[in-house]
């Protein structure tokens, strides 16, 4: 990029938005791939890279993709938790690439829970 004009700042800001938002953690949705040994063995890495590709392809800048340990239901791995801001987290089980794609467009983007893949809504009580 050569010399810029005031209006170019906005373009750079848009280009940087995802990087900056990811650091601020101020996102509309948070997707957690459970990456315990069980999850990884069942193919959680593939789910993660599918999610990363989807985010990249569609230029999404307000979704945080993160990992956590085993969710405790090892037989139903890979698992995914989707949490939209202000809503209860939804756990999805037995994930594969296609299911991930449909959850991404229906739940994460459009806000509709994909009931057929969902295990439960909400989290365990802690403490």
């Amino acid at each position, binding site marked *: 990029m050569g010399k810029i004009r005031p209006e170019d700042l906005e373009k750079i800001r848009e280009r940087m938005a995802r990087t900056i938002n990811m*650091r601020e*953690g101020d996102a509309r949705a948070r997707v957690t791939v459970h990456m315990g040994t069980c999850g990884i063995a069942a193919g959680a890495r593939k789910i993660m890279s599918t999610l990363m590709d989807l985010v990249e392809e569609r230029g999404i800048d307000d979704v945080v993709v*993160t990992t956590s340990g085993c969710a405790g239901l090892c037989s139903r791995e890979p698992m995914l938790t989707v949490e939209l801001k202000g809503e209860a987290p939804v756990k999805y089980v037995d994930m594969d690439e296609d299911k991930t794609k449909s959850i991404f467009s229906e739940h994460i983007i459009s806000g509709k829970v994909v009931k057929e893949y969902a295990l439960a809504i909400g989290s365990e009580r802690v403490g």
Partner: protein
Amino acid sequence: MKSYRTNVMLCGGTGCVSNGAFKIKDALERELKKHNLENEVGVIMTGCNGFCAQGPVAVVKPDEIFYQLLKEEDAAHIVEEHFLKGRPVKELLYTPPAEKSPVPKMSDIGFFSKQRLIALRNRGMIDPEQIDEYIGRDGYKALAKVLTSMKSEEVIQEVSDSGLRGRGGAGFPTGRKWESRRKDPRTPKYIVCNADEGDPGAFMDRSIVEADPHSVIEGMIIGAYVVGASKGYVYIRMEYPLAVKRMRLAIEQAREYGLLGEDIFGTGFDFDIDIFQGAGAFVCGETTALVSSIEGRIPEPRQRPPRTTLWGKPVVINNVETWANVPAIINRGAKWFSSIGTETSKGTKVFSLAGDINNAGLVEVPMGITLREIVFDIGGGIPKGMEFKAVQTGGPSGGVIPASQLDLPVDYEQLNAAGSMMGSGGMIIMSRKSCMVDVARYFLEFLNDESCGKCTPCREGSGEMLRILERICQGEGRPEDLDTLEELGEAIREASLCGLGQSLPNPVLSSLEHFRDEYEAHINDKKCPAGVCKALITFTIDKEKCKGCRLCAKNCPQEAISGEAKEPHTIDQDKCIKCGVCLDACKFDAVLVA
């Protein structure tokens, strides 16, 4: 541009870098590659995070997990556990001194949560070597606003209304300074950023330049537009190689984008910046000496008035922190800025905490915060729960503030009234381990060394004060010495040419005011109550408390300690050099200093 799901914001400030931050970065990247995570997790070198005492530190975003005291060997563990499996590594989390369990989140750590960042708004959030990251966090937006929609008068009005005052120490209203230079008909005009930070224990300016050089550059360009300057200098000491490197890179990137040079933003405004490296003389932080240095002459202060000029032309000289505040004021408005702080001191101030304090590091706090909050809530108090004795504010030529004034709200006027000053923001915290006479002697030694020698009161006066203080520390003080110190101090303050000399007696006069009893103990009783001045102390071993563990004897460099195992030891006073190693080694408080 590739974006990561997880950003490891690894501190790349000078403190963490000297503790191996770059090696840790390489190790993390190596491990990430091993696990095929290099496209998902990025390691970003930021500027100083501020929590220097716990360095090297890193903050993992977006989870905000704060890691401390990192070592190269930790990389494999962090990558596998945290970045692959999503489990933060407990052993590397921070545990506050008074608590048992670690605090994983940065926002829950008292050191960070009490701070308010304006000048340091981008610290730890961006890679300072990437201009796009600065722009991504609203960088150069203020400049665009100023150049396309504001008149010089409007900008000055905004800066004046904000209440911004010089952060270099004197606290002169920035808007008024700019207005006087704007009205000056002489051309060309110059802009200077004073980054010649010379106070021992101070690293505010270095950290701002290392963490966010573009904020300083943007402030300078706005200042240049307002007064009609065409050329700027960043005067930075060559002892700050990382800051120089990042500033140089930032200037180059700004030039590439046309934010420096001719026809900035296509508006027809021309301005460029060069770096001027100082050789590290303390006096160069003084405005008139600084311009002499840029002009290529001996850096000696000049008489003021007339107003300071550079090559006989008008110049605006502001400190790093002042410049870094300017874009934030333009973006968020004078009203917002002036809502923070006290009646006379608006906004925030960056302080570096050093000395006897748990959380040594860099903090930015709203003006009006009390010293107690800074020392205890943010600074975490004194190591080992020791008693707080005093804090030296304003650098070597500031003054000491005793425990009785801990509730003093920090602003320009209050610190002056307490016999100290804001200065550029160094804070040295002292516990009962510090001898106030010795501290005053140390600062006078520094100032005497750094006195440029041009005017007699400063040159000779500092030498005379130093000789008296040395004499007192040696146990050879005379009763009349304290009066002489006070008289000399007043004379130097009145008669010196520049700020260095005028403030030079502060550490002596303020400690005499608050800790006169310590001076008197040295002179009359030949005792050093803090156990510091070697000529006045002896080390002995308490036979009741000594368990005969041999630890002191093993550590003594002089082999001055003798005694059988499990029997009380003794110190041979002829061999003892009073280094205090035994005192630190003893686990039973059996070593006595008297």
